């Protein structure tokens, strides 16, 4: 076990796990409490379009994913509020359009797209030092933003109509927050991949929400459970020789099942149904 920590890639993976658990713990609490998981799913999959374009143009696919994810996020936020199309339809359109764009550009790119699978399903062991730097910066921005504006974020998320009556800058905050959701998705693509990143934004938060109804405590517990899930999944992947992204998601789901079962047992043992 100690030998693992001598490898640079494993140290990077652990650092990535810490940063992913913080960024996803904070942003995921917003996503889950505001019930915008489906929007996040749309943004996540739309980012694949940017990856395809990145490959085609020969630029870093993650930069392409970031641009595509942010544009999709702002587009979904704008169109669902301004145009008379059903929210879920707008999200599905961005979802499918992004995936289609990605597939077309990957297909027409000359040669072989070698790391495509790692973008779809992630591999935390491939996280590089520049990736870590990007994760540090974004995680710091997210944490500071939530520390300063937790009151208004909570307020707008709970009852936007009342917030508008109180003259709060709701639309500005909605755009900033959905932009942060998009960037969080992108920086975690290498950790668990496009297909599985939603798990980091939802499962730790649901484990936490099983134990508390306090927003701030949910954030802290989601960070903790996310980190436990990421490290356990990483070790599981290493020892069982299975893909790390899938191993992490599998671990998180087992943790959720255990916490739910234990809570139910406690409730039954107290005689409360």
């Amino acid at each position: 076990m100690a030998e693992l920590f001598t490898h640079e890639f494993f140290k990077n993976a652990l650092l990535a796990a810490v940063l992913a658990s913080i960024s996803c713990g904070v942003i995921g609490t917003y996503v889950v409490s505001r019930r915008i998981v489906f929007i996040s799913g749309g943004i996540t999959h739309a980012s694949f379009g940017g990856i395809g374009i990145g490959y085609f143009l020969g630029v870093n696919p993650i930069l392409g994913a970031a641009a595509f994810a942010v544009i999709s996020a702002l587009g979904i936020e704008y169109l669902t509020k301004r145009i008379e199309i059903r929210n879920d339809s707008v999200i599905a359109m961005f979802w499918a359009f992004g995936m289609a764009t990605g597939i077309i550009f990957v297909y027409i790119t000359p040669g072989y797209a070698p790391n495509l699978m790692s973008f779809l399903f992630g591999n935390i062991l491939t996280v590089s030092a520049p990736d870590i730097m990007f994760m540090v910066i974004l995680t710091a921005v997210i944490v500071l933003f939530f520390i300063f504006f937790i009151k208004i974020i909570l307020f707008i998320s709970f009852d936007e109509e009342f917030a508008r009556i109180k003259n709060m800058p709701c639309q500005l905050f909605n755009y900033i927050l959905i932009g942060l959701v998009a960037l969080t998705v992108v920086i975690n693509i290498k950790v668990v991949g496009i297909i599985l990143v939603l798990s980091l934004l939802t499962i730790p938060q649901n484990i936490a929400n099983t134990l508390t109804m306090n927003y701030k405590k949910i954030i802290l517990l989601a960070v903790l459970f996310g980190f436990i899930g990421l490290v356990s999944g990483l070790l599981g992947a290493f020892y069982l020789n299975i893909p790390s992204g899938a191993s992490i998601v599998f671990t998180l789901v087992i943790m959720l099942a255990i916490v739910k079962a234990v809570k139910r047992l406690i409730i039954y043992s107290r005689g409360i149904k």
Partner: protein
Amino acid sequence: MKKIVEIKNMSAGYNGQRVLKHVSLSIFGNDFIGIIGPNGGGKTTLLKVILGLVKPWEGRVEYLQSDGNKKLNIGYLPQQFSADRKFPISVGEVVLSGLLRRRNIVRSYSKDERDRAEEVLARMGIGGLSSKAFGELSGGEMQKALLARAIISSPQLLLLDEPNTYVDQVFESELFDILEELNKRMAIIVVSHDAGMISSYVKTIACVNGELHYHPSNEINNEILKAYNCPIDLITHGTVPHRVLKDHKK
């Protein structure tokens, strides 16, 4: 008493369909107006125009304040609370959110503000529930908590849309007693289907059915009373048949 809101010849609606037409209304600082009318008549739309949530198609809404502030401090209790019942927020946080202003979005709530929230909750009869999750409240308790949120900032105008929905009869009477007391410090507009109930408390009744018809009590004279066959200082008319009797007052 000073006029705080002036609505002039206002029309409004949704999705190209007009709901209110040519509505004019003056709201004074000590008004207590009851709004009645049929479903779809525009009662809630009128409140939303006053709140700034719905923009008028024509006409204008003016907020007249002595301190020169453009935005009037308005408290609001919605008809149906559509937020997620499982949202992780405590009753105390919900009530304190009524104090939020643009200038204090970063700082934490002070001890005075927290004490004020406890005090208002106690006045609503749900003292001690401050740390409870909002989603664990009953329908009536939620209504009380939302009313506490609406009044904690001591607004100049309080708008209530069907406030007696979900509350028991005991609290319903108590609620209107609370409103009568609040009316000494703020103007109140209450929407209700129960004309009999509100007529015991309000100073004016307005009927909204696309158009607005209302009479402030100080304009009432024998001619009007005779015209509307209404024996009290409350006048209602429009297309909805209704009659309000003074002896409803308890």
